[in-house]
């Protein structure tokens, strides 16, 4: 009996046994195969394939990275003609000892956690829903992707209108008819962060959905067939077949969404500007205030950016380790 288990190295053996013959047939059939052409060595190919990417990334990013790093150790404002003054770790010390920065880290962390968790659940759920093809599933998939296709600033602008208790449509749709008692989504300190989470989830769940869908549609049906013959229940099938197959792509999606959640700026700025007070002031809003908005404190903002970078690197490492484990198993 076929015992269902995740497609690992062992599984592919079976397939290749069945398919190698077909593949092997092809070159023989097309007799005029240019097999004798001079071949590029593997090493050359690797270099050729990777070089454009690496070169372009280095060209575009080396200068900003190094510039920002250097400036972060100085007291400097890019619009003044006073040259940078080296102050060592002073900017970093200032930031790490200032409670407002810790507050914004906390807000950002909470936002990232809530938003990515919800996006994952909703996105995965949608993918499970859409995996079986029915008439119009292609159209529906395209339509569900639409929120992701809008410019973030447009999304923020219109959701601001939608959240408005006076002339927005959300409250009436939720059943609140009296505008004076309906929730002030963006003005209530308890609701504001949730409002931003809702918009972020609305906008980016399709992203997670698409990647999960790609992973799900790669699972061969015979695995499920075999499992049901073995009388394995739904939960078992999900845990042992579905989840492991989808995990690599799901983790990539979650990794990138987490990185983006930490950097989220357009939605926060557009919806609440960091308010009320500083309830939704994420790190990116503070960064913007420091780097622009009249303060133009290039030194401090570079330092803050690097602190954020370190945090993101740490979290990404965790994900990548999980990703490698998922793929390796």
């Amino acid at each position, binding site marked *: 009996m076929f015992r269902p288990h995740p497609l690992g190295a062992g599984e592919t053996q079976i397939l290749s046994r069945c398919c190698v013959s077909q593949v092997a047939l092809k*070159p023989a059939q097309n007799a005029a195969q240019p097999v004798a052409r001079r071949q590029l060595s593997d090493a050359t190919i690797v270099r050729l394939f*990777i070089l454009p990417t690496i070169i372009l990334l280095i060209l575009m990013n080396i200068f900003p990275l190094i510039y920002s790093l250097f400036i972060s150790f100085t007291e400097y404002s890019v619009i003044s003609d006073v040259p940078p003054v080296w102050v060592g770790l002073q900017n970093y010390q200032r930031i790490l000892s200032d409670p407002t920065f810790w507050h914004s880290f906390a807000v950002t962390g909470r936002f990232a956690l809530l938003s990515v968790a919800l996006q994952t659940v909703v996105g995965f759920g949608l993918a499970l829903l859409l995996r079986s093809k029915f008439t119009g599933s292609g159209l529906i998939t395209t339509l569900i992707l639409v929120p992701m296709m809008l410019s973030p600033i447009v999304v923020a602008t*219109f959701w601001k209108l939608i959240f408005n208790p006076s002339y927005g449509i959300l409250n009436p749709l939720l059943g609140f008819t009296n505008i004076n008692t309906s929730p002030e989504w963006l003005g209530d300190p308890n609701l504001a962060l949730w409002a931003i989470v809702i918009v972020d989830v609305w906008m980016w769940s399709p992203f997670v959905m698409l990647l999960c869908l790609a992973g799900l549609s790669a699972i061969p049906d015979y695995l499920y067939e075999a499992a049901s013959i073995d009388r394995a229940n739904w939960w078992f099938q999900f845990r042992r077949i579905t989840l492991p197959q989808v995990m690599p792509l799901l983790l990539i999606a979650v990794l990138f969404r987490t990185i983006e959640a930490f950097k989220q700026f357009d939605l926060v700025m557009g919806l609440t500007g960091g308010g009320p007070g500083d309830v939704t002031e994420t790190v990116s809003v503070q960064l913007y205030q420091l780097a622009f908005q009249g303060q133009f404190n290039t030194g401090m903002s570079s330092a803050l950016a690097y602190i954020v970078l370190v945090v993101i690197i740490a979290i990404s490492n965790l994900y990548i380790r999980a990703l490698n484990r998922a793929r390796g198993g």
Partner: protein
Amino acid sequence: MTAAPLAPVNFSTRVDKVGAGPRIRTAVRAVVAVIITIIVLIPVVWMGMTAFKSHSIAVSVPPVVFFQPSLESFVSLLTQRRQLTADERADYAARTDLSWADQLMLQRGQVIIGESQFRTQLINSIIIAGISTVFSVGFAVLAAYAFSRFHIPGKDDLLFFILSQRMLPAVVVTIPIFLMYKELGLHDTHFGLILLYTSFNLSFAVWLLKGFIDEIPREYEEAALVDGYTRLQAFRKIVLPQATTGIAATTVFSLIFSWNEYAFALMLTSERARTAPPSIPLVLGVGTIEWATIAAGSLAFLIPVVIVTFVLRKHLLRGVTFGAIRKG
């Protein structure tokens, strides 16, 4: 020809064995999917409706669902206008050669003096986003294949370096890149933005495509190599077709990012290479935010991306196939 001796091939699709149970389940799924789609799209539909409203209706309390539609906002989007002074207005209104668009604008007290930048910006967006997507997906698929199939010294570090490109908040990177571009004369050039967007998208594209290519069993290429294919041929004929879903998905994501990018488009361009996103969101009219015009602009700007995604939808949903042989 499916003359495989092994049982698995007979289980290739469930369609053969559909009974009442699975069919009902599929129908239920379809209904739920439609309902969810409608809910998800309500804000977008609302935005679409707003595009056809005149300004005072757009901010009415309570919000209005049924109204007299008007193309006022679209005309406003596509033209440059100026306010008529009170004297001019009477003369202007008396003219008989006014087109329907002129009449619409006259209702607001405005006269059309020319075309707006929107069309040029839209074309710039198409050029810049299109070309940068092609390049980023192109470079990425090559790199992803290399990373997936070969042992490369320092691979993990290189991959992490590629990932780290997206980690530094854009706010901080804006000034150095702005200065760099000014120095190099890349400011306000199509090439400059294309370069920037390509490098931004590379990071995600490489990781995503590697994820897809990793799922394609190596055995296919190895069998092909044994049979005399070169590595490049194996790549082109075996791997690429199987990676179509990944390529389609990456193309869609890269396109969406480049299409909607705002901050750098604003800072690094002025007249020649300006794309649409910097000017759509905050159309300041005569002391109001022109919600209807913003909606019209956003709607118009959304359509090309929807079209591209719709065209690619079959590839997005196809998935990697194991064992099942394509028809034909």
